């Protein structure tokens, strides 16, 4: 009746209970407050059933930020364990629990923080920057968000019911196969990533169609903002890479559910195939995460140097080179698996080639600052921090692309320090810069600058303390994923420094939360009345803050790159001609599809097959209902649009 779900699934140790139940209590508190302030109707209409990408972008942001907190708590717990678990002491965490922590940390950060940031940015910025009113498929956009949220939800619920995977975030077989991990942990990973992955693929499709088909008149490809070019590269990567992930996780699922032999070491299976496939997805994935960050920095550096972006065409070539190369480097994730000298050398050389266009981008950003007038706003600080951190990450990346060096540092903390350098520098700092930069457009008021600066310095110093020691630790022979080590290794003092670093990062997060609260409190003093708080250059600044549902009262016609800058400095002003606007109506179906998907995932994990079938049928019925709905759009008359100005 309930598959393999029984009372044991709810039994956890003290720490797991603390974590799981505190999240549940938090949820209950939020639900209570919603009832108390009678906000259910408001949130249902304004956000949950909305098909407006600006609203969906905010929802992505909320889930991404909550996931960031969870991922950081996972990291803090790991650092504390590694600080104490030396010699005779085995720390405060059981090895099984510790292994779930690093697996959940990686899974959460990559899929729910990283991808959440990427899609939040796309939803909010892309239609505005290309002069469009919406995305190509608004309903699909909402469904994609719910699939992403369902994935995050499944990871969270594993804290209360059952266990999460302990295999590491990439889930290698044979460890993740039935023979070594028959329990629910790996299945939680499978369904949370699979469902979120389908959401990502659908989003990729959506925004690709949006950019190709919905740019405003006059905006040829070479007049698009560079951020849109970066997103275009990201979308191409998503469209090519995510189907590989879907198929690969699908095969692992078949191994586990139907006793197949894709990746079993016996019966003619081949575990190395999984590793090849997962990294054929995995490498493009990390570029999917970082390219939007590069796009953000291009916008931020130009705006806050009060100068045109240097080398627009060169930047596009660089983006293209990075996108193309990222498909032919995946083997560098497993140089140590014994592919042979020539194969290793080829992939190593392809990998180090990526450093060239990436370096070109950095030089172009620096030369945008050159002969500009640089304003050290928070976004600019994040950019400067990025250059320092990311360059170190890039340097160590080129080192590891030389296979014989990689033989010595693969899977050591040196590798961990490398990828955190590039991810935190590129993706996280890029996100924080984007958040500070576009917040006035989203919310209608500016963020408190001083608290933003404090947050930046905490992150910068915290990052250096948390990760520089890890380079040394890797060179001292420390591998990743260790829950205990001998005193004779001499590693402990460096783990202590790293723990201090993450504490400072938490201080930074504290400042960021405080910043949002204080900014909301003082919003009336910091209103963005013009829609253009930074003297911006691109089209999103041509709308009010926040923009109306339809973004632009009149779709602009652009003549140049930096379209808004040109518009601002033009002498001629035309009388606007208003037209009727057709926009999608809200729909309750995406949250229902989300609900059924969550149930489907949960039931598949626990082998409650009858209920899983029911949920699947529910999803199909939702789709059929949507397809048979006739009145899915509403018309806003030209008169109304004019009145609203």
């Amino acid at each position, binding site marked *: 009746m309930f598959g393999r779900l029984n009372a044991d699934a709810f039994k956890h140790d003290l720490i797991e209970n603390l974590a799981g139940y505190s999240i549940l209590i938090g949820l209950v508190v939020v639900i209570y407050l919603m009832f108390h302030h009678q906000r259910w109707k408001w949130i249902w209409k304004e956000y949950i059933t909305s098909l407006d990408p600006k609203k969906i972008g905010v929802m992505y942001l909320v889930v991404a930020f909550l996931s960031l907190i969870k991922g950081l708590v996972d990291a803090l717990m790991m650092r504390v364990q590694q600080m104490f678990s030396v010699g005779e002491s085995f720390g405060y965490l059981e*090895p099984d629990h510790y*292994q779930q922590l690093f697996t959940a940390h990686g899974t959460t950060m990559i899929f729910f923080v990283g991808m959440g940031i990427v899609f939040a940015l796309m939803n909010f910025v892309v239609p505005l920057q290309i002069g469009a009113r919406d995305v190509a498929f608004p309903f699909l956009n909402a469904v994609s968000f719910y699939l992403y949220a369902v994935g995050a939800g499944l990871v969270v619920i594993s804290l209360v019911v059952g266990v999460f995977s*302990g*295999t590491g975030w990439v889930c*290698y077989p*044979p*460890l993740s196969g039935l023979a*070594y991990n028959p329990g629910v942990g790996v299945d939680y990973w499978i369904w949370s990533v699979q469902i979120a992955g389908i959401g990502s693929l659908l989003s990729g499709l959506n925004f690709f169609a949006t950019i190709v088909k919905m740019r405003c008149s006059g905006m040829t490809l070479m007049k698009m903002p560079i951020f849109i070019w970066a997103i275009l590269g990201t979308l191409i990567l998503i469209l090519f890479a995510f189907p590989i992930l879907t198929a690969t996780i699908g095969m692992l699922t078949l191994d586990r559910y139907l006793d197949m032999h894709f990746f079993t*070491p*016996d019966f003619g299976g081949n*575990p*190395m195939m999984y590793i090849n496939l997962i990294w054929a997805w995995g490498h493009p994935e990390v570029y999917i995460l970082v390219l939007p960050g590069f796009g953000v920095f291009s916008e931020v550096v130009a705006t806050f140097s*009060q*100068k045109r972006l*240097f080398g*627009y065409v*060169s930047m596009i070539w660089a983006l293209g080179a990075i996108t193309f190369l990222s498909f032919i480097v995946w083997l560098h994730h497993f140089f*140590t698996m*014994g592919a042979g*000298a020539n194969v*290793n*050398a080829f992939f*190593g*050389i392809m990998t*180090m*080639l990526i*450093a060239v266009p990436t*370096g070109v981008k950095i030089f172009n950003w*620096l030369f945008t*600052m050159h*002969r*500009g*007038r*640089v304003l*050290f706003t928070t976004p600019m600080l994040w950019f*400067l921090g990025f250059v*320092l951190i990311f*360059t*170190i990450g890039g*340097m160590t990346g080129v*080192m590891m692309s*030389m*296979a*014989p*060096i990689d*033989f*010595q*540092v*693969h*899977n050591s903390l040196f590798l961990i320090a490398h990828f955190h350098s590039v991810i935190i520098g590129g993706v996280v700092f890029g996100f924080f810069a984007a958040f500070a930069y576009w917040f006035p457009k989203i919310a209608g008021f500016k963020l408190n600058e001083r608290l933003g600066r404090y947050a930046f*310095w905490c992150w910068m110093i915290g990052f*250096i303390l948390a990760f520089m020691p890890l380079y040394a630790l*890797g*060179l*001292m*022979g420390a591998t990743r*994923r260790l829950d205990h080590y*001998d005193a004779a290794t*001499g590693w402990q003092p*460096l783990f202590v420094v790293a723990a201090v670093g993450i504490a400072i990062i938490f201080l930074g997060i504290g400042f960021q939360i405080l910043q949002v609260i204080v900014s909301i409190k003082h919003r009336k003093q910091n209103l963005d009345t013009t829609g253009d708080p930074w003297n911006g250059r691109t089209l999103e600044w041509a709308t009010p803050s926040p923009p109306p549902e339809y973004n632009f009262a009149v779709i602009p016609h652009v003549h140049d790159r930096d379209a808004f800058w040109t518009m601002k400095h033009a002498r001629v002003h035309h009388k606007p001609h208003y037209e009727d606007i057709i926009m999608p109506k809200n729909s309750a179906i995406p949250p229902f599809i989300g609900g059924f998907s969550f149930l489907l995932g949960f039931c598949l994990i626990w082998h409650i097959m009858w209920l899983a079938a029911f949920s699947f049928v529910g999803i199909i019925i939702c789709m059929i209902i949507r397809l048979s709905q006739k009145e899915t759009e509403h018309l806003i008359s030209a008169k109304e649009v004019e009145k609203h100005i």
Partner: protein
Amino acid sequence: MNKKIKIIFSVLLLVAVLWVSVLFVDINKLSVLNPKGIIALKEYRLIVISTLMMLVVVIPVFFMTVFFAWKYRSDNTKAKYRPDEDQNHLAEVVWWGVPFVIIAILGVITWKSCIDLDPFRPLQMNNKPLKIQVVALQWKWLFIYPEQKIATVNFFQFPEQTPINFEITADAPMNSFWIPELGGQIYAMPGMSSKLHLIADAEGSFRGSSANISGTGFSGMTFIAKASSEADFNAWVESVQQSSSSLDYNKVVEPSQYDPQAFYLLTDGGLYEQIVMKYMMPTPKKYMGK
């Protein structure tokens, strides 16, 4: 406190903390940077040369970042302001070209070193190599000496200045066999046999571990590799042959964590091959059992 002083203070504080923490780093414990064998030595040299070559680009980048940010700060009205200056073909040639040349050089070095340091490639030396077969188990390492007919757990000894030919497999999920002071690692995979060739220049005790997560007891998979004189090695082999019980593989293969070192007589010289073949061909029991 004004801004400048705040920044200087923070930087000094950071430097102080880093310097203090560096004091805690025992240089000798930086295994990868203190090679004890020719393979690790070559890999170390690659680290040095690649770092130096990249600093050619990295140092100007750091300098420009700080310098441009300072010189072109908005309240420095003395600096030139050219808001529409957005391209320079010479600059593009330099920053596409110079890094490309550096990468090309590193690329050639990579190709050559991949061949030279291929784990499967035997060391080009005259002395007779010693063969050791390595099996990664649920959460310990088994070392088999097929010629000496002994086997050990979580410890193995070998003569200095002698090439060791490792054959590596697993009867467990994927692991990775790594002794940082002697050289790089290679994966230990069930149903497959990897090779690694290492050598120790002098006597010493070297720490090794698994570098790929293989389950609950993964952290306990450390072992000691001891290089001794030839005479000491032979004496050690003899003492193991004299005083140990026979290896019961079925017992050793059972999951256990943080095992102490153990020494056995090896009765079945073909044990390693059997462990590998176990995964590759159906045994009647295994197939019918499905």
